[in-house]
């Protein structure tokens, strides 16, 4: 089972750095795992925790959030705000039992095509090792049954 398991990973990335970095990885013909679906946003500051919950709700096994390095934000400080938010949200998820290993955060600049490809590979490997997020998927499955109690 775990051999054949291919995780579904959603990546929320900022368009100025990480997305361009992904582009660079592509144009440099770098090979990386195909498990990641990338969703491009104007800035990491736009990445609401709601997105992460929605991805989990739709059955994601892992989530990657990535944007410009501190100081490089196209909007000067969107990523600083995002950093605080992630810090808090990560603790919250951890406290409610959603393993923080499934939610990864990174800084990738437009020049870091290699880092992007490596990161995608390592994140995919990590999540693959963790296996499918069964606990959450059971909750999704349960929504088909009327509430009991």
């Amino acid at each position: 089972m775990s051999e054949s398991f291919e995780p579904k990973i959603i990546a929320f990335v900022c368009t100025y750095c990480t997305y361009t970095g992904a582009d660079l990885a592509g144009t440099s013909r770098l090979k990386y795992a195909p498990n990641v679906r990338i969703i491009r946003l104007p800035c990491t500051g736009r990445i609401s925790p709601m997105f992460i919950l929605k991805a989990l709700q739709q059955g994601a096994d892992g989530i990657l959030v990535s944007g410009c390095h501190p100081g490089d934000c196209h909007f000067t400080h969107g990523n600083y705000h995002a950093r605080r938010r992630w810090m808090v949200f990560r603790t919250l998820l951890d406290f409610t039992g959603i393993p923080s290993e499934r939610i990864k955060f990174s800084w990738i600049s437009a020049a870091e095509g290699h880092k992007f490809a490596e990161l995608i590979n390592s994140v995919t490997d990590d999540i693959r090792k963790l296996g499918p997020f069964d606990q959450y998927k059971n909750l999704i499955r349960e929504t088909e049954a009327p509430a009991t109690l």
Partner: protein
Amino acid sequence: MTRILLSDKLDNCVARWRKAGLTVIGPVKKETFSSYATVENAAEFDLGLVMPDRSIKGLFFPQTEPMVHYSIKKQAIETRDFTPPSEKRIIFGARPCDASGLAIDDPLFGWDYKDDFWFQRRNETVIVTIACTKADDFCMCTSLKLAPDSTKGSDILLRPLQNNRGWQVEELTDRGREAFKEIADLLQDGSEPAAAVAVVPEKFNLDACVAWLQNPENFDSTFWKEISMRCIGCASCTFLCPTCHCFDFQDEGDTFTGIRRKNWDSCSFALFTMHTSGHNPRATQSARWRQRIMHKFNYFPGKFNVNSCSGCGRCSRQCPVDMGITETLQAISTLQP
């Protein structure tokens, strides 16, 4: 001479019912919270509660329930019905107020269009009610012209024996008789007297309240604003109420596949009646509280000839700001009609 069910036979009864394919449900307390829940043996029951925190309503009208599964194909929409699951159930140890709550809502779910989600469960569930021998400050069934031993909505009524060893069995419906045939040999004849039912003082004069509510002039009374000023607009009263039946439809899923669900909704939410245009017929919390009281004691009886309240008192017991039907009706009964 009456038929008697002894407490020490209860576990056998549960086993017998389960063997006959019935799901056995009863009051269960887990840590700080009690509700009607499925049990495997009689030891799980907590029959000493005044009443479970949650009413019985959710067993017939769940807080959220899938109705239709849809999947949108290129030129067709495929749907799959969630017909109410067929499941024979017996609820042991229901409270008379909870059981009457179900009977109160029957005509509502049945008028003109029959809601099978409700009725299938109603038809397949046997309700064994135990008369109350204790009550708390919030119980008010007597004020609603019901009683701690009313039979409304029950299939079997059990009256606790004075010596606390068991219950007198009063069979009320065929459905009840059918379920008790399974355990006929576990019952015995006896003449032990039944314990006195709980004393629930009458808290307000219902007729006076109804007369006041029916007077159209009182609709615009300042009373409503005064009484509901501290209402915070949550739905704990309506959701715990055994008779509140308002609901909402919600579609959950993505563009191609998902489920249309029926969810509890509450008249105390501001968005409940809000039009898309922004106009809200019940724009203030006082209008919403008025709607709740009027609906229960004026509109509903006008349609179905029965008050939409069974006097369980959960609304007052659980209110975060200590409001509730009791306080409002007590205040109304002092007013001139």
